[in-house]
Structures are given as structure tokens and as C-alpha cells.
């Protein structure tokens, strides 16, 4: 299918506006990325592009989605919850009555600025996506309860593509926690989620953001989170992937204000025939910024987990402190883990450290536990839980940490053969 035809299929031309015209022209010229591009090398893109070529718009908003179903699939973290189903806001299952003052939470139209899109998925997302889940926090606001954005995909009879969008804008000096959950139901046909999240952290703001992808086992998911940080801002971002048959989570952080800090963590647990790909890019533009990456993968069965950690230190970004760690646990010989540090350091006076490991469960530790009477499956699960525990440690809100710990444990008991 030509890129023009694909575009007409997924985002039929509507009322002419300058931004849309530019995006359409860009997409027709560039199309979707391929695995020849380094950043897409480990993504099972063929499955995604084939599905997109057959995909239509999602079925109309599903009435059977209830608050209880959202609780079950995405959890309730106590604070306000904004729920989108198949890309459209669902006020009836959202909980917006307790949105604190200084915070705006809802769905609204959003343009990504006037630059060229970073890639074809982003272009499609902007063209085909509807309202964005929007979190706006004014300056000097301290938000006590976590704000939860849920993107639910509900399949219909035919392959459907959904283009969820989230925008988080945090004013100077504000403090906020945002949880973004991608969940879905299994159905007759598969779904393709092409998600885009933008986070803008103002001067000296503190932003905690968690991206949780727990879609149905046969879903396809391509997501990108782009973070822009002003001076002195502090972001802690976590990506957890357990769902979808093919999933990619790209996180791109631009530290453009002096003294900005980002603490990135990730966990991916591909089993069965799942493919989980993480592509993290931290771009140190301003001086005296600090970044850490801690990503861990547990791969089982015929699963494949990949991590690419790209650190760029630009000219002038003196005093940069960048650290990257990727550890993988391969639970059986048919599972596969790829790890790829990718450092581009163009400034002097910087500290960059990276480490990557791919290993099996420790036989000594396993024997030690078994010799104390703990059966093999439980011993394995205990060691895997200890491995993933480091990523989830200290994660706030506690309800999310407990939920993720439990869902990891449930998967690990499957792995405990």
C-alpha cells in the first residue's frame, strides 16, 4: 500500500488546515519507519504495518465499558481519572469531580507545534488522533493525589487502529504525579494502538510519570513519550510493559534547561511470543543536567525483549552526569534479549556511565532456596521478583506499585517452571 493510500485509510482528508496539509505532505513523502532505521531495528514493525494496512477506524464508543471494568483493567489510584475508550473521552466512566484547583484535566484538541513530525507514527497520530487527554497544571501548584489517564482499546469485528494522545503541561514549581495506563480487551479482531504522549515540565517542577502498558495479548502497540524539561525541573518516569504481542515504548527526554534531572526506569516482561522493544533517548542539551536510566527485562518462552539506550550530550552541555543500566534475565533458552547502549558525547567535562547484562537465574541462589524447602517454581518466582523489585522500589503511588508487583508476580508464577 502506498503511503498516500495508507493515509487516506487511517486519516481521511478533512477540512483543510495548514498544519494538517503539512503533516499529510510529510507523511506521503516519508511514510512509516522501517527496521532499517537504527531506532526501529528491534521492533517487529512488519506485524504493525501489515495490521495498519488492513485497519479501519475503531468501533463506536463501546457502551459496555463500565467504571468497574476500568477499575479491573487499569486500577484505581485514588485521584481523578480521565478515561478514553478507542481514542474518545468517556465522561461517564471518568471521575473528574475531585480535580484540584490549578489543574485542568480533560479532552481537548492539540497540535504538536509547527515542526516536522519526528516520524510517521507521530504524524499519523496527530492526523488521525482525536482529542488529547490533557493534563494542565498551573504554576506553583502542588497536586497531592495522582492523576490517572486511561486509554482503553476495545476491539470490534475488524482490525482497528486507535491513536491515543496525551499532553501533560506542568507549570513552574509545580509538583504532580501522572499515571497513564494503556489497557484493552481481547476480541475478535486485533487492535493497533499508536500512542503519543508529550510532557512539558516547567522550571523547577517535579513531575512523576508512569506509563503502564497492559493491553490484550494479541494487541499491537507503538508508543512514544516525549519529555521536554526546563531549568531545574525533576522528572521521574517509569515504563512498564507486560501486554500486547508487539509493543514498542519510546521515551525521548530533552533536557533543555540547566540543572534539569530525569530518573528513568523501565520493566518489560515478554513471554509467549511477545516482542517488547524499549528505545530511550536522553538528550542533554543544557549544562549541569543529570539523567539515570534503569531498565530491566525478564524474557521467557519465545519472547524477545530489547533495549536501546541513546544518550546524547550536546556541545555546551558541560557538567552532564548520565548513567544507564540495562539488565536482562533470560528464563529459557528460546527467549531472547537485546541490549544496546548508544552514546554520543560531544561535550567535555561530562560523566557518562553505562552497563548492560544478559543473564540467567543464579543456580547457586536457586539451590540455596530449594535446599530450604522452597519448591522450584516458588524459588524461581522469588528470584525474579527480587530482580524486578529494584525497578518498582519506592514507586509512588503505592497502589500502582502494589498492582504492578502483583501482576509481575502473576506472570512469574507462570514462568516458575
Amino acid at each position: 500500500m502506498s503511503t498516500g493510500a495508507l493515509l487516506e485509510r487511517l486519516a481521511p482528508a478533512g477540512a483543510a488546515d495548514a498544519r494538517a496539509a503539512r503533516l499529510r505532505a510529510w507523511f506521503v513523502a516519508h511514510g512509516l519507519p522501517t527496521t532499517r532505521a537504527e531506532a526501529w531495528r528491534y521492533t517487529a514493525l512488519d506485524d504493525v504495518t501489515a495490521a495498519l494496512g488492513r485497519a479501519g477506524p475503531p468501533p463506536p464508543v463501546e457502551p459496555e465499558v463500565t467504571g468497574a471494568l476500568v477499575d479491573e483493567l487499569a486500577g484505581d489510584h485514588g485521584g481523578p481519572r480521565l478515561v478514553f475508550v478507542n481514542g474518545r473521552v468517556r465522561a461517564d466512566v471518568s471521575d473528574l469531580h475531585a480535580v484540584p484547583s490549578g489543574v485542568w484535566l480533560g479532552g481537548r484538541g492539540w497540535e504538536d507545534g509547527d515542526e516536522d513530525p519526528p516520524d510517521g507514527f507521530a504524524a499519523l497520530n496527530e492526523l488521525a488522533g482525536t482529542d488529547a487527554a490533557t493534563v494542565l497544571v498551573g504554576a506553583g501548584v502542588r497536586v497531592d493525589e495522582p492523576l490517572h489517564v486511561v486509554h482503553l482499546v476495545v476491539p470490534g469485528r475488524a482490525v482497528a487502529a486507535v491513536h491515543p494522545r496525551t499532553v501533560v503541561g506542568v507549570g513552574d514549581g509545580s509538583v504532580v504525579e501522572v499515571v497513564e495506563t494503556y489497557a484493552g480487551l481481547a476480541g475478535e479482531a486485533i487492535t493497533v494502538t499508536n500512542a503519543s504522549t508529550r510532557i512539558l515540565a516547567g522550571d523547577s517542577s517535579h513531575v512523576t510519570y508512569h506509563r503502564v502498558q497492559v493491553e490484550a495479548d494479541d494487541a499491537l502497540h507503538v508508543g512514544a513519550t516525549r519529555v521536554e524539561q526546563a531549568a531545574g525541573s525533576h522528572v521521574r518516569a517509569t515504563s512498564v510493559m507486560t501486554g500486547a504481542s508487539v509493543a514498542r515504548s519510546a521515551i525521548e527526554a530533552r533536557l533543555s534547561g540547566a540543572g534539569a534531572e530525569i530518573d528513568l526506569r523501565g520493566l518489560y516482561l515478554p513471554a509467549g511470543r511477545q516482542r517488547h522493544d524499549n528505545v530511550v533517548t536522553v538528550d542533554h542539551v543544557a549544562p549541569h543536567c543529570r539523567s539515570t536510566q534503569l531498565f530491566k527485562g525478564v524474557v521467557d518462552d519465545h519472547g524477545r525483549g530489547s533495549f536501546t539506550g541513546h544518550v546524547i550530550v550536546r556541545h555546551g552541555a558541560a557538567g552532564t552526569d548520565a548513567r544507564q543500566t540495562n539488565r536482562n534475565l533470560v528464563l529459557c533458552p528460546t527467549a531472547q534479549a537485546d541490549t544496546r547502549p548508544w552514546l554520543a558525547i560531544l561535550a567535555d567535562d561530562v560523566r557518562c556511565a553505562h552497563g548492560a547484562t544478559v543473564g540467567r537465574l543464579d543456580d547457586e541462589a536457586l539451590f540455596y532456596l530449594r535446599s530450604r524447602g522452597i519448591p522450584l517454581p516458588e524459588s524461581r518466582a522469588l528470584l525474579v521478583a527480587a530482580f524486578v523489585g529494584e525497578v518498582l522500589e519506592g514507586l509512588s503511588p503505592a497502589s500502582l506499585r502494589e498492582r504492578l508487583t502483583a501482576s509481575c508476580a502473576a506472570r512469574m508464577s507462570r514462568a516458575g517452571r
Partner: protein
Amino acid sequence: MLHIERLTVTVEGKRILDGLDLEIAAGEVHAVMGPNGAGKSTLSNVLAGRDGYEVAGAVTFDGEDLLALTPEERAARGLFLAFQYPVEIPGVGNMYFLHTAVNALRRQRGQAEVSAGAFLALAKEHMARLGMDPAFLSRSVNDGFSGGEKKRNEILQMALLEPRLAILDETDSGLDIDALRVVAEGVERLRRPDRAMLVITHYPRLLEHLRPDRVHVLQHGRIVRSGGYELAAELEAHGYQPAAAS
């Protein structure tokens, strides 16, 4: 209780144990001494069920074929190995580990599980006796423990798991005199007419505390000499060579 007959163990084509015979009855404490490389640790590892050994011969525990059982099944039958080198397991809390182990054993034995509260009280009681700070419960298993702390943690596990046959693999090595006394007392407390112990050691000092019923010399992969407690003193005075030659 434990019956070992013509036990032969090979690792990567190298014969470590070569027709070892040993019989331990309930209520007895046996010591196995021997020079480095005699196969002492191999014996304890094979009894506990570690992988990586080619094993021939017969080992029964209360008449049951021990070699056919998994490590966890052996533990459920009442076998316990105090490791020479206790394994560090970062990320697994010591309290959680001990509680899980106790309940795993109780489940396999058809007994009711112990609640976390009741278990914590019991663990603290044993730790006080062993001179262990209760803070060790909230740390990861053996992670960053000193040599002596690791050995005490082994004795703590032994006390909590209440084995019927405890194998102590050089538990005394690397301990100062005070720690050795605490460990010896911990072992002594476990002694009962229905329990047995196999103490593997290089040094007679632990044996001075424990006064074993039998002392065996393991050399070249088999028991070359056996005797009463006085044999330990003789070995200390003359070394292994004369004993092996006799």
C-alpha cells in the same frame, strides 16, 4: 537414619568420592574430617541434592532413596545443609525468605502455615539466642553480611526449620572464638534423641564443644578411618597422613 553405601561421585570425569560408606543413627553426632580436596563438601552437596554431580551408590534416609528426591523434597523430609559459603540473594528479604521456607516445609509436611506475626516472634526469640540484631530480618538474604553473620544466619535457619538431619559444612571456618561458641551452642540446642548431625570440619575446636559420637577421616574419596571423639585429638596432634597410612 542415614545410610550411605558405596557412594561414588564424579565431576567432569574426575572421581571425588570413591565408594564411601557411612551410617548415622538417630540421636548421634558424627564428624567428618579430612584434608583439603578430600571430598568433604562434595559429600554434603550430594546429600542436599545439588546438581552437577554424577552419582552412583545408595543413600537412604529413613529407608527412602534420598538420591531420587529434589532438594526441596529432601528438606521436607528433614534434611538441612548449613552451607560453607551461604549464598547472597539481593532483593529477597531475610524475614520473607525464612517465613516462606518455614511455610513451604510445613505445607509439604501437611502442617498448618505459621502467620507472619507468630513467625516474627519466633524468629526474634532465636535471633536473641544467637546474638543477632533483629535488623538482619529486614535485610536481603546474606547480602553484605560478614562471614560470621552469614554463619549465624545459617544456624538461625537451622533452628527455625528444625531439621532431623543437619549437615554442617565447615560452619566453623572463619569464625572467631566468641562466634564459634554461639554457633556451637546453637547446634547443641538442636540436639535431640530423634535428630542426627553430620559435622564437616577442618578444626577440632568445634568438636570440643559438640563432643561427637563418631569421628571419621575422609581421604581420597572414602572414609579411611573411624573412631570416637579421641580420634579428633589424635588428628590435631599428628595430622592426617599417619592416620591414612595405618
